């Protein structure tokens, strides 16, 4: 018996998987005798083997199932949901026993009498209660899978053998599953033989070494050619060429022996979906497309669990309950779609649902409470950035922990598992329309196409560099989206925002990293940019040179190197040198996040919805990069003769309209010109003013300002794309506070007045906060009426509230009415802040409960009003 058990187990495990497939197809077409025949025969085989080896419990169960299926096959009873459910339950029980058998070698304790009784009852033609409730899930399957499934390589995870096609079939160039003559299950034995997985692995290792040796030969040959100026012996070329071609074919064939249709990874899904539909009480479809796409069995195993988890998530969190869907005018039946396709050397898997989309507000909240983002960052974050957060640890958005998902194992684990096998995952969500995940994984882990890149060695003392003084690295091709050259005269160039290098590519602002700098081997250099997709976002790696592509046989990193997350492995190149393979996901962590990355065409309609502001563009400090400042903040532009500039101990000053005004530079100290003229922007605040020296005033444009990148430099608000150029936005308030006395000290001796700013525009929040802070107020900013009223509920108190009028959802007028109606803010002064400031608007504002009205860019009046309101209030209180 001991000899027979392993064979029995592997055969049974394979058979069981087939039964699952067959049963679900059977449920949809109960008239299909061929399918029923398959199911019956498989159960029959299990029963027969059991009796032979002596497994009484299994035999009894299989017998009961066989009897039921027998009557069904003979047409004595008709299949209904109850019969399918109980048969599935029986198969599950068989599977459970087989699993215990596989690990312990003996049947588990206990009996299956209840189940057997139910099966017997059905066999006798009686129905059981509640049987009608089962089976709401409707599973559609790709027709390709249907024709191919049984004869292909279906094997269980625990199985140590894999069914393979005979050598004659393998040598055919088309993948086996695409063969039109793929017969039904019964012909399995004729065209396949069983080969142990260990043997296949061994074969793969040998082929890998062969590929490596071939690469070395070819490299060596090229070297000789160069030495002998191309006059090398020709007679070796032809055999070498043929050897190379044959090894290529061999590699391909051996790879294919390890390939299995991806439907193997989702074979469990139809069952799972069926159960989910019952557990969640949601009716939905699962549609699978491209099940015949093949990939390495190793990858297949790795992708199984993440896929199952994601489908579960989609069903549980993605799809709304049927009633909600109907109420929202959607088809009440939800739909989950899983599509696999091969694209070059990798597989793409797309899992989409037509549910509610990600709860971005919830993600934002969680990001703040979980410490992934500061409040300010979360407010600025784009939808895409927020959506990406679901890949961060502890970010499950499920409102309640259900049995199905949301048990703390979230998308971060899925992401980690996918990255472990060299894959990437991205998410896209449209509110009310659904969520789409895109996974890319390599076909195999054993041999990887990679790009060899080089950087010059900046550190001359390094002993171990290559002969030509440079480093080479390999970058997996799957990670490289495209290559961009950024030379002086090309379309693209490397720009700097706040000192950080960025590249503008089709309207996106991509952060860049210089490989030398990241690795700490030299100063930033290079003009070749690899656009990398990693961790669901794009960035660029700048290198000095891109050489060629090579098929690498990946070897794991040695002990102490395994911890370095910037490398995923190493490999021996054709010239015999070792090359380190860069890990795009690891490198991504070294790259700062640049805000939104939307193509132009997408942002255009969005921009139309936003307010545009007049911006003054200029150059300063010798930098080619344009800077911008809201025109409304500029008092005037002066053109000053060099002779009028007077140097003092505290820097240069200039007399403007009877006042001495400091003349300052944007970055560092200002050196006045000795002749000619100096352009300057004059900013005034209260009694003080400064003149900012600029090289050139470029233009005044109307632009929807959307900060893309916030800055660590306090004198800058951040960066935005204005007139199609990455432009730094100046923080005027900071400049003033640095150079003008007053302001900050104004209220320094009394208790600081607290001001609440309500504005949906990030730009204004960014501008007002430093401005008011510089004037000595304690400032809280929120992005809308709801957030403001939430603060009221928390019992927060303010000395004054500034609110925008035009806001999406509840407007400033609604806000004013709510504040005045009741609650502890009913006495707080309210100032309306609006770009619409004609009489009519003012009247409406006053009627709603605002005390004062000020135009958005009228900074002087705003500060004066604030001082007046706050101080006036104090005096009244005193």
């Amino acid at each position, binding site marked *: 018996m001991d000899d027979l058990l392993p064979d029995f187990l592997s055969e049974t495990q394979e058979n069981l998987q087939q039964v699952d497939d067959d049963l679900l197809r059977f449920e949809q077409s109960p008239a299909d005798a061929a399918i029923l025949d398959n199911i019956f025969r498989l159960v029959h085989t299990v029963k027969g083997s059991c009796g032979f080896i002596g497994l009484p419990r299994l035999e009894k169960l299989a017998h009961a199932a066989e009897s039921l299926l027998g009557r069904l096959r003979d047409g004595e009873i008709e299949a209904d949901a109850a019969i399918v459910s109980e048969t599935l339950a029986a198969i599950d029980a068989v599977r459970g026993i087989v699993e215990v058998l596989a690990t312990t070698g003996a049947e588990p304790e206990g009996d299956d009498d209840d189940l057997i009784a139910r099966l017997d009852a059905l066999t006798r033609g009686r129905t059981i209660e509640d049987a009608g409730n089962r089976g709401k899930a409707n599973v559609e399957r790709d027709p390709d899978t249907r024709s191919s499934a049984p004869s292909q390589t279906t094997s269980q995870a625990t199985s140590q053998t894999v069914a393979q096609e005979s050598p004659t079939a393998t040598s055919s160039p088309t993948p086996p599953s695409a063969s039109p003559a793929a017969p039904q299950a019964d012909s399995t034995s004729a065209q396949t033989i069983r080969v142990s997985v260990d043997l296949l692995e061994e074969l793969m290792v040998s082929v890998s070494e062969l590929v490596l040796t071939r690469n070395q030969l070819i490299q060596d040959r090229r070297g000789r050619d160069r030495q002998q100026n191309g006059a090398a012996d020709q007679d070796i070329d032809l055999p070498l060429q043929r050897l190379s071609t044959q090894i290529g074919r061999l590699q391909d064939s051996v790879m294919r022996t390890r390939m299995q249709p991806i439907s193997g990874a989702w074979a469990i899904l139809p069952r799972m979906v069926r159960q989910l539909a019952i557990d969640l009480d949601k009716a939905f479809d699962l549609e699978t497309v491209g099940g015949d796409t093949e990939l390495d069995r190793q990858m297949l195993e790795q992708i199984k669990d993440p896929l199952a988890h994601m489908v579960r998530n989609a069903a549980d969190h993605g799809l709304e309950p049927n009633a909600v869907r109907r109420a929202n005018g959607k088809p009440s039946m939800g739909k989950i779609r899983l599509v696999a396709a091969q694209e070059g050397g990798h597989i793409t898997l797309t899992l989409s649902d037509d549910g509610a989309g990600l709860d971005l507000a919830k993600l934002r909240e969680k990001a703040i409470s979980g410490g992934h983002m500061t409040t300010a960052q979360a407010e600025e974050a784009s939808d895409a950035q927020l959506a990406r957060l679901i890949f961060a640890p502890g970010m499950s958005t499920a409102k309640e922990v259900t049995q199905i998902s949301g048990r703390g194992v979230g998308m971060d684990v899925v992401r980690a598992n996918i990255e472990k096998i060299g894959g990437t995952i991205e998410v896209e969500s449209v509110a009310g329309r659904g969520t789409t995940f895109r996974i890319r994984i390599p076909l195999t882990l054993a041999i990887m196409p990679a790009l060899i890149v080089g950087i010059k060695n900046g550190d001359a003392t390094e002993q171990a560099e290559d002969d030509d003084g440079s480093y080479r690295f390999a970058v997996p091709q799957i990670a490289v989206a495209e290559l961009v050259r950024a030379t002086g005269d090309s379309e693209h160039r490397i720009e700097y925002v706040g000192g950080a290098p960025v590249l503008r590519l089709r309207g996106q602002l991509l952060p860049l990293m210089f490989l030398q700098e990241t690795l700490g081997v030299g100063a930033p250099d290079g003009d070749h940019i690899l656009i990398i997709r990693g961790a669901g976002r794009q960035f660029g790696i700048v290198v000095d040179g891109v050489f060629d592509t090579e098929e690498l046989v990946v070897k794991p990193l040695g*002990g*102490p190197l395994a911890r370095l997350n910037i490398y995923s492995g190493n490999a021996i190149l054709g010239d015999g040198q070792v090359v380190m393979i860069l890990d795009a996901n690891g490198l991504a962590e070294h790259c700062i996040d640049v805000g939104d990355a939307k193509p132009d065409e997408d942002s255009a309609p969005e921009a139309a919805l936003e307010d545009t502001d007049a911006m003054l563009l200029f150059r300063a400090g010798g930098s080619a990069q344009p800077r911008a400042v809201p025109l409304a903040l500029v008092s005037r532009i002066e053109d000053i003769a060099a002779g009028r500039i007077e140097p003092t101990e505290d820097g240069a000053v200039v007399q403007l309209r009877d006042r001495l005004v400091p003349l300052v530079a944007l970055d560092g100290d200002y050196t006045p010109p000795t002749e000619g003229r100096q352009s300057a922007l004059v900013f005034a605040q209260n009694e003080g003013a400064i003149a900012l020296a600029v090289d050139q005033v470029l233009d005044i444009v109307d632009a929807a300002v959307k900060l893309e990148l916030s800055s660590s430099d306090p004198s800058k608000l951040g960066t935005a794309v204005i007139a199609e150029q990455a432009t730094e936005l100046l923080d005027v308030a900071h400049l003033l506070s640095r150079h003008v006395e007053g302001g900050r000290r104004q209220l320094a001796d009394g208790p600081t007045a607290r001001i609440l700013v309500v504005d949906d525009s990030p730009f204004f929040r960014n501008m007002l906060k430093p401005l008011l802070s510089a004037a000595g107020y304690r400032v809280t900013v929120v992005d809308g009426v709801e957030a403001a009223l939430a603060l009221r509920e928390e019992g927060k108190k303010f000395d004054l509230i500034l609110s925008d009028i035009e806001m999406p959802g509840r407007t400033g007028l609604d806000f004013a009415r709510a504040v005045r109606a009741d609650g502890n803010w009913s006495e707080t002064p309210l100032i309306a802040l609006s770009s619409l400031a004609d009489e009519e608007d003012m009247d409406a504002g006053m009627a709603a409960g605002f005390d004062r009205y000020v135009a958005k860019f009228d900074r002087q009046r705003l500060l004066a009003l604030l001082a007046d309101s706050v101080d006036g209030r104090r005096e009244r209180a005193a």
Partner: protein
Amino acid sequence: MSQIVTMELAGTALGINVGVVQDVVRLGRMTPVPGAPAWIAGVMNLRGHIVTVIDLRRRMDVTQAPLGDGTPKLAVVVECRREAFALMVDGVGDVIEVGNGDRVPDPATLSPTWRDVSLGVIRREHSLLIEVDVEAVVFHDLARAA
């Protein structure tokens, strides 16, 4: 009784159990690994296997000691946790037989860096020899972190 391969590093006599030593090689071209600890000199191709090369002078913090004239770049290839590592040394000597009686405790003057990797000190006729624990050398930071 055990057999020890003797070697020299910056004037210090060292020994490694013959059981873990696979080979003594002359160093060829190495690929540096930026980002790795400074004592990792790089990785090299040793007959089709990738071996991590450890700069033992840096690892043991004895970089000030002068290098001998024309010292060939030698490395002792050792096996540790089923992987191969090449330890750069100044010279390799004989294999000696060591009895239990030859072992003495670490002298108090032994620096902490050496103490961390010492399996014990072996008394020889004219000198002392530190028996090196390869695992402690190679998995330096990991052991400390654990």
